[in-house]
């Protein structure tokens, strides 16, 4: 390494370290123990830049016996000691520790947010030997060379680091909740023999409760009928639809009376009203908004959006994505960004158009003290994959739209009397596109113009229609709407919400893109609700969340918050202990039922009352399909292939109506109808 003195710069990720090093001066890379570090000679001095791999330390149980609970004695440990798969972390710690010995000073250049601050703090404290309060802090929102140089020119010491304290407290509280509840649930399950890891985290519990609650509403939903009455009208050869003013007619007889009362009559325009609507531009993206929009337009899951956005940030193409802000301060340099974007052909026309007027963004209410909203840096993108290109385009187009003018639309509404019944027609047209022209690919402003209507106009009634409809159940959550619910309820953080949803999938509590709660989820939530409702209570989670935030503001101390959270937790654990037996039997039954449900391949096409199920013969050991209504007299059965895994395709054969299954033996599953007399089999036979 350098013979003379240098500043040791600690970064969060290798890509960031590389960019930071190149911003500081001439770079030489060296490899120690498979760890790359950068030696930099710059105008301001010498630096050694090294990178972590996210967190190098984690909170862990001090006790030797790792299955007992309650656990309250915890400490920070190197990740490689806790997780054997993280051997590289051990090398990293060794290298950074040895580099710290020759350093004259230290710089924390991790991402400027609660997680970045915690990562940097732990490295400076544990690896560099208590340097957390003397280290300098480089704060930046983009990895552009210009901003990085400026950040290093303005570094300041960070002696009272509340952000890191809050981050560390959050890790401790989440670990205590996670480890204790998981052990309590797992032990409860295993108390009657067998083993299954059941986990519930501090934010996981209430989030799962949202899904289960919605699932109940859907499964309990009885659709109520209603009728909508409409008339097809004509004026000067232009046909348009009018709807009866009462959207939902609750009785069939009433709807039929309306239709009868209108039959053979003409329509008379009674009132015409026009309204000009000024539609403001969208607000700049914060992480939540970006995740919702990427889900809406591309179907990206929130965690995928975060991953792709981070990769764009590390390429210095966009600003730091883990932000709550919906504001774009002038200090980000609007003109510099626009000049950069002007170099890209696909944005040139729009950028030139926007540059003809003063640049003033339309901003939202939400703010973040650490970072502005997400914006493109104006650097030229290179080598982006498909997902990166799509997300980048969405971010650029949103950025441009934010600087656009209001869109102006006209809404026309007319009341038309047919017989003695009042109908309404409405139309919209765009007068000025405004910001929509910059965001055209992602927004639709459909026009449905009407002919010129004036009071007293007589309109021909071409036809009348009475349509039977049914009330709809609430929609299932998808990843985006579940994330929105978590945001609305104030649980989790912008950085962790997507990960919590992923965990619920991994634990088998939820399935599908249109999210369904599994039987196990029902059982866990049921027991919690009955014996320890605070674990799944949004209020309690929010309270802990607020307490953690108050550490950042200096209102509460770390020990106060941890103590408070631990007290809540202890009460919940005692409540759960009482329910151990019930929990065990409920979850066992749920597991058994889930496995049994997996063997059902569809409704029995013969008796239509039972289900066809995969059964293994006790005598021969061979598997076949049989009807669950055997006791009710149905003897339907069919042979099955004996090799490979069989999975229901959840659809019926087009020719005979029997269920279809996939036989998975090789990479390419074989799809068959289970009916031995299906015409498809005869066709095959002829061949």
């Amino acid at each position, binding site marked *: 390494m350098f013979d003379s003195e240098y500043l040791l710069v600690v970064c969060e990720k290798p890509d960031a370290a590389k960019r930071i090093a190149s911003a500081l001066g001439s770079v030489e890379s060296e490899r120690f123990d498979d760890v790359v570090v950068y030696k930099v000679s710059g105008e301001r001095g010498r630096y050694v830049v090294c990178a972590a791999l996210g967190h190098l330390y984690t909170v862990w149980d001090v006790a030797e016996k790792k299955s007992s609970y309650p656990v309250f004695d915890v400490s920070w440990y190197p990740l490689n000691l806790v997780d054997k798969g993280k051997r590289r972390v051990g090398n990293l710690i060794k290298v950074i520790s040895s580099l710290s010995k020759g350093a004259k000073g230290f710089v924390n250049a991790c991402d400027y947010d609660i997680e970045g601050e915690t990562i940097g703090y732990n490295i400076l404290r544990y690896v560099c030997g208590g340097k957390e309060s003397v280290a300098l802090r480089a704060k930046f929102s983009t990895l552009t060379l210009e901003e990085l140089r400026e950040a290093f020119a303005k570094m300041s010491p960070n002696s009272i680091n509340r952000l890191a304290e809050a981050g560390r407290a959050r890790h401790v509280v989440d670990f205590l909740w996670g480890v204790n509840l998981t052990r309590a649930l797992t032990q409860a399950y295993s108390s009657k023999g067998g083993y299954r890891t059941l986990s519930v985290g501090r934010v996981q519990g209430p989030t799962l409760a949202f899904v289960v609650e919605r699932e*109940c509403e*859907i499964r*309990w*939903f*009885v659709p109520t009928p209603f009728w909508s009455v409409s008339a097809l009208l004509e004026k000067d050869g232009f046909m348009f639809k009018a709807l009866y003013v009462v959207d939902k007619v609750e*009785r069939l007889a009433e709807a039929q009376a309306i239709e009868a009362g209108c039959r053979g009559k003409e329509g008379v325009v009674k009132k015409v009203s026009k309204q000009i609507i000024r539609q403001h531009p969208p607000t700049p993206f914060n992480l939540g908004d970006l995740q919702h929009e990427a889900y809406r337009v591309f179907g990206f899951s929130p965690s995928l959006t975060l991953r792709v956005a981070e990769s764009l940030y590390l390429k210095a193409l966009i600003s730091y994505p883990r932000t709550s802000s919906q504001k774009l301060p002038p200090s980000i340099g609007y003109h510099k960004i626009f000049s950069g974007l002007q170099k890209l052909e696909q944005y040139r026309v729009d950028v030139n158009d926007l540059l003809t007027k003063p640049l003033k963004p339309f901003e939202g209410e939400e703010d973040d003290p650490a970072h502005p909203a997400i914006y493109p840096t104006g650097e030229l993108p290179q080598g982006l994959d498909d997902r990166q290109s799509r997300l980048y385009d969405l971010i650029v187009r949103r950025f441009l739209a934010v600087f656009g003018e209001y869109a102006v639309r006209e809404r026309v509404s007319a009341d038309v009397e047919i017989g003695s019944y009042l109908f309404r027609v409405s139309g919209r047209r765009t007068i000025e596109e405004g910001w929509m022209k910059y965001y055209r690919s992602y927004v639709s402003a459909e026009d449905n113009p009407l002919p010129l209507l004036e009071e007293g106009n007589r309109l021909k009634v071409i036809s009348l229609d009475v349509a039977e409809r049914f009330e709809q159940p609430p929609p299932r959550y998808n990843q985006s709407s579940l994330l929105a619910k978590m945001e609305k309820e104030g649980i989790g953080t912008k950085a962790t919400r997507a990960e919590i949803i992923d965990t619920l999938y991994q634990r088998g509590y939820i399935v599908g893109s249109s999210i369904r709660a599994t039987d196990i989820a029902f059982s866990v939530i049921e027991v919690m609700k009955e014996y320890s409702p605070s674990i799944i209570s949004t209020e309690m989670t929010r309270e802990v969340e607020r307490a953690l935030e108050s550490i950042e503001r200096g209102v509460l101390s770390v020990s106060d918050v941890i103590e408070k959270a631990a007290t809540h937790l202890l009460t919940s654990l005692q409540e759960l202990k009482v329910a151990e037996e019930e929990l065990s039997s409920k979850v066992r039954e749920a597991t058994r*039922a889930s496995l*049994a449900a997996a063997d059902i391949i569809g409704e029995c096409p013969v008796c239509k009352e039972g289900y066809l199920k995969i059964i293994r013969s006790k005598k021969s050991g061979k598997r076949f399909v049989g009807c669950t209504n055997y006791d009710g007299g149905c003897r339907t059965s069919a042979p099955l292939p004996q090799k490979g895994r069989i999975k229901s395709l959840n659809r019926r054969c087009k020719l005979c109506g029997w269920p279809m299954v996939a036989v998975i033996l090789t990479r390419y599953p074989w799809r068959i109808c289970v009916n031995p007399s299906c015409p498809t089999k005869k066709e095959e036979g002829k061949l």
Partner: protein
Amino acid sequence: MKCLLCWRESKSKYGLCFYHDEAYRSLKEGYQRWCRAYDNISEVKYLERLLELPECGEWIKEVAKMELKRIKERS
């Protein structure tokens, strides 16, 4: 005692678990609304229609199927 329709424990007088019991109650309430909407509809017709509707909840369909079977057996 097990629920007549699933693996859960039954605590109700109808032999149903909490979820199916709630569904049974909703099914009965729903029938009142349907009777009002159609100026009377037979219970069998109501249940048959529900079973055809994609909007209808899973637990409702399960109790509707059971109820339909019961009515048919009675007649």
